[in-house]
């Protein structure tokens, strides 16, 4: 069993079961199939890298969507 890691997700602390890939994170958040964009520590994580890039302890993650606005 990998050790749990702690990240900051959309500004709130969150514990994950281990160094998940971004695909696994999206699944964990019930966001699979939804149009989202992800930033890690201020850098975009392209969707093409979701399968192999892994989260690391202390990562600051932003997951955003499009909402109504002017």
């Amino acid at each position, binding site marked *: 069993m990998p050790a749990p890691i702690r990240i900051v997700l959309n500004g709130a602390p969150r514990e994950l079961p281990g160094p998940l890939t971004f695909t696994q994170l999206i699944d964990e958040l019930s966001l699979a199939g939804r149009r989202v*964009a992800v*930033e890690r520590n201020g850098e975009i994580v392209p969707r093409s890298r979701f399968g192999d890039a892994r989260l690391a302890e202390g990562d600051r993650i932003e997951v*955003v*969507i499009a909402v*109504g*606005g*002017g």
Partner: protein
Amino acid sequence: MNAPEKVAAEDALVVAGREYRSRLLVGTGKYRDFDETRRAIEASGAQIVTVAIRRTNIGQNAGEPSLLEVLPPSRFTILPNTAGCYTAQDAVRTLRLARELLDGHALVKLEVLGDPQSLYPNMPETLAAAKTLVAEGFQVMAYCNDDPILAQQLEETGCVAVMPLASLIGSGMGILNPWNLQIIIDRAKVPVLVDAGIGTASDAAIAMELGCDGVLMNTAIAKARDPVRMARAMKAAVEAGRDAFLAGRMAKKPYEASASSPATGLIQKS
């Protein structure tokens, strides 16, 4: 094709090399629900719609429809904005996320605000953000104040459109300084769109009569008593204003009446 459509097709709004029939751009905020959003936007005839980029509510939106399902990018040009950003850095980050969200889409609305009361643009930060974004390949439509020099600087930075305010965002105060807008319109080589401050249909018509290339609005439609009907009114106003601009208004003749009916052939006692 009937005549009015033909006129519209010939008089396209061109932004970043792409042609649009509609010169009305609309925001998608402040509606009661997605159904009202969709119906109002359909009625407006808008082809470019603005959206905001926000954090997902983790664990709270599974199964809910999303805005981009209601307004699919296959049918609309989605214009992500940076509303709520107060620094160039936040605006650039937001639009990089937007580009990723929209599969590499480059056309964006930049707005960097100065303070939360006035929502007046912070122009030094707007210019700094525009410079970075243009260098990264974004096509930037920039919300700005109605200063002709700053509008020109945005254009020189490489913005594809400048979007001066008519009055404060969401105020519905209409066009407070048509003279400044006129100077911006006369000088600009990129499209000038009035963004912010439109309250009712006549405001949109006046903007277009001044020679604006388009009008962007949100609250005037969303906060009307009947948003769908107001969307229809705005569509008509933008088209009427554009036609009036192209037709060229008659000269104003103060203190000089001119009868429309013949002055001769009157029945009268002689």
